[in-house]
């Protein structure tokens, strides 16, 4: 496998029953950059993300064909441990989903599942993750109060912190700013820019402007197909495909 790529996807297809959600996808993603998965609703963006950590396995009737390699390892191959894979490939969903427990317990949830139990060790992880997600200063005095009392933007950063607590290699964020105000959005974007120093990030942007602000490369999806993929300044200034241009210029979407 080519070493310069973190993720290599080959002829990958996903079906829900007989409906095809991803068609013949070939895509390679480099480490330490932000790859934006762009496209209108029902274009296969979430399916692509959920295929990378095999959350599609939970969906009744979902099937796949083709291969996905992460660091050269086929993730649909035999002897793949799903908990292990999902710890390496973290995901944040489009709706902030704080579990009904304290802020501390939300962050400690993943590490605890892995078997980390020491109070001081967990405390360090919680502080480091919340700091990385730019939430520490806002919540450090009420770590043991319910996470459900946080605002939407804080809950979404909590979800990011919860993902970071597992020290994954790949971060996937599915419209992490939908339903958030511009200030929360800006703070999440700021944390993404600093996180890409260490992680490979897949982002389903909230809108085209967000993609152009943060993404290094962009893939444009339509109806489950990858229409075109390239560096973001190229996609946004001189797209090769008519459909991409139409979408970016706001003719549909």
């Amino acid at each position: 496998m080519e070493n310069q790529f973190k993720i290599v996807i080959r002829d990958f297809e996903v079906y829900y029953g007989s409906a095809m959600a991803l068609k013949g996808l070939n895509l390679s993603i480099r480490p330490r950059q932000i790859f934006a998965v762009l496209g209108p609703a029902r274009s296969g963006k979430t399916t692509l993300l959920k295929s990378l950590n095999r959350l599609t396995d939970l969906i009744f009737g979902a099937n796949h064909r083709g291969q996905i390699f992460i660091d050269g390892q086929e993730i649909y191959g035999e002897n793949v441990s799903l908990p292990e894979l999902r710890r390496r490939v973290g995901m944040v969903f489009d709706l902030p989903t704080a579990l009904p427990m304290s802020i501390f317990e939300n962050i400690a949830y993943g590490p605890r599942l892995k078997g980390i139990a020491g109070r001081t060790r967990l405390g360090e992880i919680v502080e480091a993750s919340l700091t990385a997600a730019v939430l520490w200063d806002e919540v450090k005095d009420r770590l043991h109060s319910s996470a459900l009392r946080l605002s939407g933007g804080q809950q979404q950063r909590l979800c990011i912190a919860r993902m970071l607590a597992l020290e994954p290699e790949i971060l996937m964020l599915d419209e992490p700013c939908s339903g958030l105000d511009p200030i929360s959005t800006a703070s999440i974007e700021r944390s993404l820019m600093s996180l890409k120093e260490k992680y490979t990030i897949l982002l389903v942007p909230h809108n085209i402007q967000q993609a152009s602000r943060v993404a290094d490369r962009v893939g444009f999806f339509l109806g489950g197909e990858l229409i075109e993929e390239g560096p973001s300044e190229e996609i946004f200034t001189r797209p090769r495909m008519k459909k991409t241009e139409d979408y970016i210029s706001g003719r549909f979407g």
Partner: protein
Amino acid sequence: MKISRHFTQEIARVVIGVAAFSTLAVMFWILYQVLREGLPLLHLSFFVDPPREMGRAGGISSTIIGTLALTVVAIVIATPLGVGTAIFLREYTRESRISRVIRFGTDCLAGVPSIIFGLFGFVFFVIFLGMGWSILSGGLTLAAMILPTIICTAEEAIKSIPYSFREVSYGLGGTRWQTIRRVVLPNAFPGILTGVLLGVGRSVGETAAVILTAGSSFLMPDSIFSPIRTMAVHFYILAREGISMEMAYATGAGLIILILIINTVANWLLFRYVHRG
């Protein structure tokens, strides 16, 4: 003739009000009747003395122990089975032949009259397995009787937990069991407790099935293989055989107080649980 919207609105309000009021009235009338006759006879000695002269005198201590023992056995057996079945139906299978068979079975079980459970318990536990009239036979029979209720309420409780919670847990590297143990069960607990309480209520109040499987001896039990008499059975025998209406009412009042205590403790537990941390 056209009836105005305002008029139909008024009629609906009155009908619904009458329904709510009648429900309350019936409930309070029953409570009043039993407590008026029974409360004056309730002294501490009534609760701590065993029955004497077939129940004409003395207290009800052995029947309180009998009631509690029988209910505990029934709940301890039925809760893990019921919650386990509900988890299986919701977390381990999709709608499939096996889940349809289980659901059909529990629906049927829920509609069976308690006397049929009693007959089954008598034939199977008491005679065939040779357990005799005992707390164990009665508890097993009651467990079978309340199982459908517990399965059904636990399944509803598990169903009401958002799919996104499970997705988060799996997404953070949780196995199926970890997800059930740390996300599904804690959030379903209040609903499960409701089902268990309904089961407690049915066990405490049951007579027919209990007489057939646990007997009606009012001697103090010394193990789960002893026969017992529950408070509800005691009440039934005192009233039915015309032994003593006063003592019957007193027992009834004691039974109501017992149920109030159980519900209060459960509510307190629930409150503590919901407002934990």
